[in-house]
């Protein structure tokens, strides 16, 4: 990204003379060599200092922090929506395999997984906001403002979790111990909930956790369509503005969230599957 462009022409009026451009470059430290700039960044980042935003003229971390709340709100809502809808649907589809329910659920999931977020978002605005007048078109506010972006953002995660749940459950249903349980006369609901779901949990937890990481990492398109003041939108605008400190800080924080979530999933493996314990 550093090699992709210079923020200075974006900051100054188009008729700024060269001397002015060089002065601002010096002021921002952009006249130094890349290794030096990187070294300065590393040392400062270790101290929690991500530099000053070129665009906002404020400390980068303070700017990014201002966007975290909105992203967490949207990401968690979308995640809960996705998980609480997708796991039961996937389970039901697997148990009632090849039934009408299965076909409809998986058909919808296919659309949810393949429709571009941009298209879904605009479609929701047109149908649910403009036509049906149920929700506002965008912006942050009460829960009604959250509904459409969370649905849009959650659609992909919902679809992939549902599809994976279904196949994981189907796999387990074919296992010998399920046949044994049924042969012993265990009630069918017990077979599904206790024997099947528990054994199918590993892949479901993995994909769900990864989806959470993605959702919390900021949703550029959803946040842009719904004018949601989140970190994804900040990041993409900062890339356009060549506002390096903000991009670095945002990427850094997203990476940390992702690492933490992956770590928690790994720990969960041990809880869910005794074989995975050391």
């Amino acid at each position, binding site marked *: 990204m550093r090699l992709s462009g210079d923020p200075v*022409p974006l900051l100054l009026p188009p008729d700024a003379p060269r001397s002015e451009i060089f002065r601002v470059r010096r002021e921002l430290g952009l006249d130094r060599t890349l290794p030096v700039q990187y070294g300065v960044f590393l040392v400062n980042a270790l101290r929690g200092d991500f530099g000053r935003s070129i665009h906002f003229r*404020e400390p980068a971390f303070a700017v990014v922090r201002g966007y975290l709340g909105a992203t967490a709100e949207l990401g968690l809502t979308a995640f809960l929506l996705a998980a609480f809808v997708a796991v039961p649907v996937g389970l039901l589809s697997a148990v009632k395999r090849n039934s009408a329910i299965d076909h409809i659920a998986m058909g919808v999931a296919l659309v949810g997984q393949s429709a571009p977020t941009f298209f879904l978002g605009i479609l929701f605005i047109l149908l649910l906001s*403009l036509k049906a007048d149920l929700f506002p078109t965008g912006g*942050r506010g009460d829960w009604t403002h959250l509904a459409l972006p969370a649905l849009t953002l959650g659609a992909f995660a919902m679809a992939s979790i549902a599809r994976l749940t279904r196949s994981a459950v189907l796999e387990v249903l074919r296992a010998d111990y399920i046949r044994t349980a049924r042969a012993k006369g265990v009630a069918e609901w017990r077979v599904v909930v206790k024997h099947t779901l528990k054994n199918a949990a590993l892949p479901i937890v993995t994909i769900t956790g990864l989806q959470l990481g993605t959702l919390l990492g900021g949703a550029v398109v959803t946040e842009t369509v719904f004018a949601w003041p989140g970190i994804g939108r900040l990041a993409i605008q900062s890339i356009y*503005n060549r506002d390096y400190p903000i991009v670095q800080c945002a990427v850094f924080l997203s990476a940390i969230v992702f690492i933490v979530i992956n770590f928690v999933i790994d720990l969960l493996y041990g809880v869910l599957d005794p074989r995975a314990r050391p």
Partner: protein
Amino acid sequence: MVQVTRRELLTGAAALGAATALPGALTPASAQTTQKRDLVVAQGGDISKFDPHFSTSSNDIRVSFNLFDNLVARRPDGKLHAALATEWKLHGQTEWTFKIRPGVKWHNGDPFTAADAAFSLARTWDPKVGTRVSTVFTTIDRIETPDPATLVIHTKKPDPLLPARLAFYGGQIVPQKYVEKVGNDEFNAKPVGTGPVRFVSWTKDDKLVLEATPDYWGGRIDVDRIVFRSIPETAPRVASLLKGEVDVITQLAPDQEERVIGNASTKVEGALYAGLYVLAVNSKRPPLDNPLVKQALSLAIDRQAIVKELWRGRGIGPNGPIAKGDNHFDAKLAPLAYHPGEARERLRKGAYRGEEVVIETTVGYTANDKPMAEAIQGMWRDVGINAKVEVLEYSVRAQKNRDKSFKGLWWSDPTSTLGDPDGMMWRLLSPGGPQDYWRHPRFDELGEAARFSVDEKFRAEAYREMTKIFLEHLPWIPVIQPYEDYGLQKYVEWTPNPNQQFEVRRFNLRLRRA
């Protein structure tokens, strides 16, 4: 000056084209009046900072021209009016005196004096402050404040446009005492101005809240609060207007206007853009160093078709390098002609051998840039020009602009910052200027002389001759002077300003109430 903001995802609007065919989705017939005390304005991007001397982007100045006042104001009629200065006079050739408006208070209660004005202007070029408008007042030699109600500005040479310079960006007056007390960062975070609204709160990319200054010198505005929201995508921005969530939207794309007009409660207001959309030319690169080839390029463009098809009639064909509405615009000059036969003839005379002519276009930097580039490519091919369109990312364009490394032609939307050719063609095309790709001794001589002459008759003559030279050599190929359109609720009575200043004052805003 519009750079940062034009990066709209207009493609999004296009993608929605099919879906927008749902007119009259809601038609609240009662929406011609309102009880609202707030005015909600949605723009395409959020502001970046409050300090008016640190930004010239149009999203920022829509706000800063309302938080702050200038000594002189350019109003929607395009003329200069008294603002923080009640009158001004030129003595001799280089000495201007400004009478300071008495009784004006800063938002924090401090009195406004000539010292604030002197401080503000000097601040723009102070290297210790490092503003982004340090080149606006280079004609000023020194400033004196003989008493708190008088400001005297001496210019280095005669500067006929000093009042116009004071009316645009860089000219916003900031409070000396407050800025010196809290420092530049704190001032940027908690701005204090003299404008009709004062700062309340800002959540980035979400909501900026301003409230009416109760004792504003120009009269309290007709609403209690102004809320700025940023809605980056065109389609949702229009949807929020149709639904009545916002009262005004900026940057209304021509292809969305039917939706706004077709809706019972909303309307479109526009002002002819104070500037032009041109294809700037790198006249150093063959075959564009040949005036005959450039004339052919211009003659081959069917501007009426572009206005009609791509702009739905929201624009006019230019007649030269001076925008309609500016000083010295020659109304008698015919619009640039479309004459494909003559274009072929000039190509033949110019010995054009089929060299490649490249338009480097952005997508959404100006409205319709890529569609216009493609249309023009087709028109040029029709007369035998080997035209090619290449797409640039916005910041690459900024870089090429700086390095002066464009391959052929590129979109530029020169804004007339001063309401005068000096602030437009001369600002950009002068020697050493940002679009210095072509030189002509007589053109340069006249441009320089007109800049420093206070004799308007001489200036008129100079710009007439410069226009003639321009039309022969075409360092720009002017394409359109579009309207800058806004979508409004019908109960909002507001007159837009031609130069993207979003001015909210008592004289130009009223909400029709039940």
